[in-house]
């Protein structure tokens, strides 16, 4: 039996990688993948707790997160394609019209 803390550490590590990637990377697609990574890091902690406490709620929650993530992927990719079509770049630093 792997102790709960290992799962949580891994979960935290995945989430941290996601945050780091989100902050550092310039390519929109990479950033997008970083977001997925964060979501899955959280998912891991959900299932870990669910298994540990023998509570199904956490696992059900994960399904919800996965559904939302899938929907988000669909919408997000569509946006990325739209951005690429209008600006011909995927570098977020050049998508900066929304400022004062």
């Amino acid at each position, binding site marked *: 039996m792997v102790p709960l803390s290992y799962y949580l550490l891994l979960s935290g590590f995945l989430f941290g990688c996601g*945050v780091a990637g*989100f*902050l*550092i990377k*310039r390519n929109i697609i990479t*950033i997008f993948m970083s977001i997925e990574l964060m979501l899955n890091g959280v998912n891991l902690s959900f299932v870990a707790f669910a298994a540990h406490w023998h509570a199904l709620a956490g696992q059900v929650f994960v399904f919800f997160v996965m559904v939302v993530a899938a929907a988000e992927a669909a919408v997000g990719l569509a946006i990325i394609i739209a951005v690429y079509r209008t600006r011909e770049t995927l570098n*977020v*630093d050049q*998508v*900066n*019209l*929304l*400022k*004062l």
Partner: protein
Amino acid sequence: MNPMLNLWLIPILPLAGAAINGLLGKTSSRRAVTTIALVFSGAAFAMALWVTMRFSSLSLPYHENLAHWIRSGSFTVDFAFYLDQLSLVMLLVVSGVGFLIHIYSVGYMWDDPGYYRFFSYLNLFMFFMLTLVLADNYLVMFIGWEGVGLASYLLIGFWFTKDSAAAAGKKAFIVNRIGDFGFLIALFLLIKHFGSLNFDQVFQSVMPLGAEKTGSGLLTAIGILLMVGACGKSAQIPLYIWLPDAMEGPTPVSALIHAATMVTAGVYMVSRSHVIFERAPIALTVVAIIGTSTAFFAATIGVAQTDIKKVLAYSTVSQLGYMFMACGVGAFSAGIFHLMTHAFFKGLLFLAAGSVIHAVGGEQDMRKMGGLRTKIPWTFWTMTAGTLAIAGIPGLAGFFSKDEILWRAYQASWAYWLVGLTTAFITSFYMFRLWFMTFFGEYRGEAQDHSAHDAHGGHGHGGIHESPRVMVIPLAILAVLSVMGGYVGVPGSLGGNNRFDKFLGPVFHGSAPADAQQSPMGEKSAPAQETEGPEPESGVSTELMFTAISVAAALLGLGLAWQLYYRNPHLPGKIAASMSGTYQTLLHKYYVDELYGALFVRPLINGSTRILWQGVDRKIIDAAVNDAGEGARHVSDEVRHMQSGNIRSYAGWVAAGSALVIAFMIWMWTGAR
């Protein structure tokens, strides 16, 4: 049980006229406006006459409750009307004289572009004045009280394009507000201590207050505060200053509002509240002193004025002082008697003065008149009647009422009598001065001067001419009333039976405090006039002697004026030059306007400018608003750099923010342990 009189119709009729003329008058013809104005004010008068006819069959006082107004716990105020002998006299004076002045105005204002507006205001005034005199409680009276003030303001400033008229209107309104303030506080005191504003209820609660309560601070305070209100409305010291300026209004307005009716509202109110005043000797003394001093003071100013309307204005102030003197010595019915005769002769004098001004094309300066006797005979003869009446020449209205007041004043104190007598002499002098300067001697004006001093000239009339018939008829009627009006109250000493006093008797008598009736001082004590009865023989001869003295004073005034302004017209100038200090003081009205300016107006304006405007408003309120805006701008200037448009920096902020929140939560969780 009383029949339904529908008293409420009396004030409502002129209101309807005012509304119709005010809303539709602009587009309708002068003839239509005239018809509406006269029909509605005439209907009010007709109704007043009808009420008079049925008066003897009523059980008094007659009440009429129109609608509920305020119901709050046990305190109620209704739209209700009240009729007794006192209201009836006022009702007839107001609607009758008012109607005559409406007729006169048709001629006087015919060429004015604001014709419809004038009649709308005039009818509005009638509405409020009739409400005032018919009110059943102090609050309905207060509606009328404020309303006549409004109408007065509108009519004084009728020629509002003229700066002086607009300023005079404002002055009248503001000075009146000071008086109204006192009146209001008196009403609050009545509500607080008697729980009612209804005349009957208040007086019934005041009536049983015995000797120990008589003269108590409460009633004295109420009395003095009511008198403050009356001072404002009736132009008494110290609030009389608005009335002379109010002469900026059209002359019929001066006649109606500032001589015959509105300014007497204070006298009416004090007389109506006589139950309170009789139990507050100090307040009554205040009334008497204010009245006496105003009578004297205003009369002396009147001597030096050269504007025909200003002389009459100061004369009005002075005569109102007489009325208050009468009230102050407890002779309320004498005050009301003088109020009535004064309405006749002063209304007449103003209308005649208007006719003179009309004749000479808008000139108001008496120094530029003279010799008008033969040119405008109707005006001359009617004005003569008015002058004789006000001067107290025997047989005319003013003689009886003034004589009555002086006699009653003497019974209270010889000082009142002496000042009153001196005033009678001065009154006679300045009125005959006006008369001689206007109608006798040589015409001193320029031949064809249309300088339009009254803003009323400018219509192409050729030379000095008599006024149209529509103006002369009211003059004639008022002249007859000025001559005959006094015979309703011929005192016992002159073979009459003082019917006027007896008529008002049920209102004023039998209400004085019980202890005063058995006062050992008898008739010398001020508020003890209910010891009426048949007067002893010695009293009659004394009274006759006093009558003779006041007649002598009037004749002396006449003689002096004749000597100075008819025989030797150059003498007044010399006298004025030799007593230039006194003369300048009188000419400048004792510098009271200047004094008030320095004492109240300028400090107020300076205080408002320096402290309230530049201090509080600009440095605190404006500054707070501006600084808040500036501050927000400065902060935003710094913070807006967060909005770089760079997604990764946003993400960084989000991460930093969530890190902060998590840190805070951990700290709280550990700290809570």
